């Protein structure tokens, strides 16, 4: 009999390696189910080439659940069963293309959206959630009409005192958020306001800058101490199909 001498550790090789001579060469359609025998190894390693339409449903500990490039970055488009549930990897260029085109809300198996939701009997999708966090919504057969970019949260300690008099009733703070743009929707909260009658508002004053205003609308002076949190979201009305 052979006496195989093996490392104590299991293999860290990918299950599939695609090493093409051109980046345009492709691996399209991979299903790996119930693979085991290694810890931390990817399902697919794309040395060169493009990967699409892959699904990995494997065990969490010994199974392989990713498609990666030689740098260990996820690549291609795939879905996989992860330790926490499921993971979905989309392709950024395809998302940009589909959002810019007439097929944005098209139902069916060729959607470029990472997750697409629709109802049978309808020609367009009702909702989509993309891998970059963008969510789109629409109505019956009218396509998507509303799009929300992924929310961003900025927070900062902010201590301020407000009087009941007119000249001391407001305070402001400007926060940096590099992706914030004019017109983005902002919402602010402060953990130190409690029962005080203080109104908070936030808005983008310029690229990367969010201004927060606090207004004392009560009759007493207020001392506020704690953390300020602001959520910034890009909202966009889309041209529906009707």
């Amino acid at each position, binding site marked *: 009999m052979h006496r195989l001498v093996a*490392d104590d550790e299991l293999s860290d*090789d990918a299950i*599939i390696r*695609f*090493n093409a*001579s*051109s980046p345009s060469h492709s691996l*399209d359609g991979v*299903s*790996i189910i119930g693979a085991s025998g290694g810890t931390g190894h990817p399902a697919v390693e794309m040395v060169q080439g493009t990967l699409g339409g892959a699904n990995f449903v494997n065990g969490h500990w010994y199974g392989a659940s990713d498609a990666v490039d030689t740098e260990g970055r996820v690549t291609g488009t795939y879905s996989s069963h992860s330790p926490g549930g499921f993971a979905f990897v989309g392709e950024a260029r395809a998302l940009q293309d589909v959002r810019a085109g007439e097929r944005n809300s098209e139902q069916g198996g060729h959607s470029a959206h990472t997750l697409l939701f629709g109802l049978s009997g309808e020609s367009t999708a009702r909702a989509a959630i993309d891998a970059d966090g963008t969510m789109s919504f629409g109505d019956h057969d009218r396509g998507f009409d509303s799009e929300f970019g992924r929310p961003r949260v900025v927070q900062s300690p902010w201590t301020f005192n407000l009087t009941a008099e007119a000249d001391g009733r407001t305070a402001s703070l400007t926060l940096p958020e590099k992706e914030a743009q004019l017109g983005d929707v902002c919402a602010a909260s402060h953990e130190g306001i409690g029962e005080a009658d203080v109104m908070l508002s936030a808005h983008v004053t310029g690229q990367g800058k969010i201004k927060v205003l606090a207004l004392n609308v009560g009759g007493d002076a207020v001392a506020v101490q704690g953390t300020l949190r602001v959520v910034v979201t890009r909202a966009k009305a889309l041209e529906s199909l009707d």
Partner: protein
Amino acid sequence: MRPPPGCTLLVLFATTFATGEGRNRDHGARARRHHHRRSAALLSAGPTVDCLSGPWVAAGRISVMDMPFSAKGVDASVDDSDAVERCAQIAANCSIALHFPHGKYWLGRTLALSTATLHSRDGAIALTGDSWNSAELCGCSGCNDRGTCNSGPVILFGQPDGGGCCSSVHHLDVLGMHSAVHVLNHPGVRMSQVALTALSPAVDEAPLVITNGFEYYFQDCDFTGAGRGPDHPAVLLRGANATSYNGSYARTPYVYMVSFDRSEFVMGGVLYEQTAQLDNVGAVFFSFYTCYTEASSMPLLTFTSAPGVRKFRVEEVTIVDYGNCARAKLPRLRAHDALSRVN
């Protein structure tokens, strides 16, 4: 090789995927009727050929140890090439299986099985041993004397200009120095309960090498390489046909539809190399069901395309219930135990 005298039979295409067991041959043919019709339409019609009459015709198989062929088949100490080749010719002509009783057979030269060497319509043949008591076909004397090893594969299905279609191998262990089995422009090979071993694969060699073709199926098979890393796989698939395809499944510029079921790859995985230009479709349909690799230093499946190949598209790879037992550290393959199954 001239066909031996004897009775005349039409070689029926429908028997070319015979399982090797006479009672099962018709069932196998029926199950693949669609494939056979398609292949038959693409292959040129062959001549009516002679079938040497004998008890093997009724038995549905001819044994290499039958009189007057009398292969030794005991300890692989005698080159049985003559007996095996003659029986192979009769088996092909009579559309019956070529049977190897339990034992060790030394084939001092490559057993070439194709339309060039088999005077059958399609160059197809069924090789079979006995279930649970396999025969060993070796390219080396005694199955371990490397100095006597044939440098070529032990068995070659097909030929450079297209070598027929639809052969099968069942219940055999095949051991060669650099390769056990080559399949060249010969679509439709099926194997079950077969162990293929290469003692020392050279570059561009492997226990099993398939070059160009269509539809291969392996069930309960072992492929044992020498564990030298990614350049020495256990199975090598090559899309290398640079000549005209013209719709012939024997002359595809790729290897298409390969399925492994309950099979093991030891000291190497499966490597696909695309060197020929492709017009549109690429290599499609690779499936692995309940397979595992052991002591391998490479992935289960690797695809490569050569520089200059303009298009290469692989579609539909399915792997279900795959296990990877351990990485190779030291390939300690010894000649005298190379036929052992590694578990």
